[in-house]
């Protein structure tokens, strides 16, 4: 029983890591009604910039600060060059633009830095937390716990920022109708720049944490794929939904691996999340907390 609990907890914690990546998607979806295909590339961009600065001997916090600024400048540039000319265009066009952006950012990051694998140490040990191990015998990684804590703080603060009163309303308005939003005086451009900057910050945090776990390299942009089932479970436009979605996916795949694995063969962890997402699409297509689209027929 203790073992099951241990598996569940480590699953929940690794799920939070998925939530972190999913969060970036949700922010941009909320503000523009568009799935940002380039989120994975932004994670790569941030992680690569950060790790290369560290390797150049820049102190940890200064490197983090510089990367943060780089991601914010990137957001402003993206708004100015990519998004602004596409105001009032159908959403599918905005979506296509993010696909282009994805390839551009992947190329840019690896062109400016390099395409090698870089180790990243954040100074958080990926070792069992001693007090817990000693008292109960459960082995839960300090790194996982810290990551969960960081993610929780990030989600809570972004949730407060983007949900209350006027900003929440402005975001939904912008996502619904660009032209009308501008006509009532909502500064569409500023809102997009702010949201993309926020998504950039999230990408940095996700990139750093995943970077320590996987090493910083091109494939880090593929963690975005693991965020997709989280989004489907939690709902594309719910900030708190990513946490719940992440927890369910994380715990689900770990438990399935351990308890179903021996019965139907291993490797369940690799596809279980997508199966779960598919079942959700059948019965709850807007996710647990997503906003249902209302159409008058």
């Amino acid at each position: 029983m203790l073992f099951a609990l241990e598996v569940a907890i480590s699953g929940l914690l690794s799920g939070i890591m998925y939530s972190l990546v999913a969060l970036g998607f949700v922010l941009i979806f909320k503000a523009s009604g568009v799935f940002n295909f380039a989120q994975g590339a932004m994670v790569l961009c941030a992680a690569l910039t950060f790790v290369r600065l560290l390797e150049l001997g820049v102190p940890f916090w200064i490197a983090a600060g510089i990367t943060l600024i780089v991601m914010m400048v990137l957001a402003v540039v993206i708004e100015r060059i990519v998004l602004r000319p596409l105001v009032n265009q159908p959403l599918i066009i905005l979506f296509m633009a993010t696909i282009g952006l994805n390839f551009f950012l992947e190329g840019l990051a690896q062109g400016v830095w390099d395409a090698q694998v870089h180790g990243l140490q954040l100074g958080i040990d990926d070792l069992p937390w001693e007090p817990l191990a000693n008292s109960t015998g459960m082995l839960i990684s300090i790194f996982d716990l810290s990551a969960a804590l960081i993610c929780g703080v990030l989600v809570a603060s972004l949730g407060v920022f983007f949900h209350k009163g006027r900003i929440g309303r402005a975001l939904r308005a912008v996502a619904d109708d660009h032209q009308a939003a501008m006509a009532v005086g909502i500064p569409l451009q500023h809102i997009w720049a702010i949201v993309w900057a926020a998504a950039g910050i999230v990408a940095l945090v996700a990139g750093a944490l995943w970077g320590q776990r996987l090493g910083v390299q091109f494939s880090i942009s593929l963690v975005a794929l693991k965020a997709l089932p989280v989004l489907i479970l939690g709902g594309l436009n719910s900030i708190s939904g990513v946490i719940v979605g992440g927890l369910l996916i994380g715990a689900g795949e770990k438990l399935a691996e351990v308890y179903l694995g021996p019965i139907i063969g291993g490797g369940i962890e690799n596809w279980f999340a997508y199966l779960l997402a598919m079942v959700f699409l059948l019965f709850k297509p807007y996710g647990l907390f997503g906003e249902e689209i209302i159409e008058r027929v």
Partner: protein
Amino acid sequence: MTNGKSIGDTLLRVDDVSVSFGAVAALTDVSFEIREREILAIIGPNGAGKTTMLNVLNGVYQPDHGTMTFNDRTYTRMRPSEAAEHGIARTFQNVALFRGMTTLDNIFTGRTLKMKSNLFMQAIYWGPAQKVEREHRQAVERIIDFLEIEEIRKVPVGRLPYGLQKRVELGRALAAEPKLLLLDEPMAGMNLEEKEDMCRFILDVNEEFGTTIALIEHDMGVVMDISDRVVVLDYGRKIADGHPDVVRQDSAVIDAYLGVAHDAA
């Protein structure tokens, strides 16, 4: 309809505005003025450039040349958000509401510029922000009462019938307490009863709040009934400008609407 109310000085003057899209000249050297407290109708056959004109007025399009003078300040262009800041509100030909949001929230967005508290402060100090929210809620409720849409306060507007959506859109524009209200075909697609309601609201807005209104409308009966002055566009040029009764008799206007002998197909 000039009885009783005093039409004031020029609120907005358009001078020699031209707009083209590639080789298509949508507007050519159009000049007219909108005076304080009047209801001005912009009419013309399909494709005459009426909506383009409104889009220039609230900054969606930038004129190729020509200027607009609003409140004694001259602009060659202003962005939509600037137009909103200067007090120009509008509705759209194809209702442009935030479909997933309730009537209440839609009208609330109209007060965006009235809610002066900074975006960030709003998120952090949420006590004062709540107080601001309450004050604005009162203003929004007044508009809801005025437009008689109390029952649909909490209904997502995507579910409302077309006529009511148009009314909510008017409400959102009114929430900004505009100096100039631009209405793009406020009565299109409505039945007779809905049209009469909308006419009444437009006249009431004009009389009770003293709001200057420029509207585009195809229903000639409506235009002649409610407007103080009519500007007629045809193929992007202004062909008449004056009192409804005068414009009605104008031979160029009659030609534009009915076609003249030599180009009657």
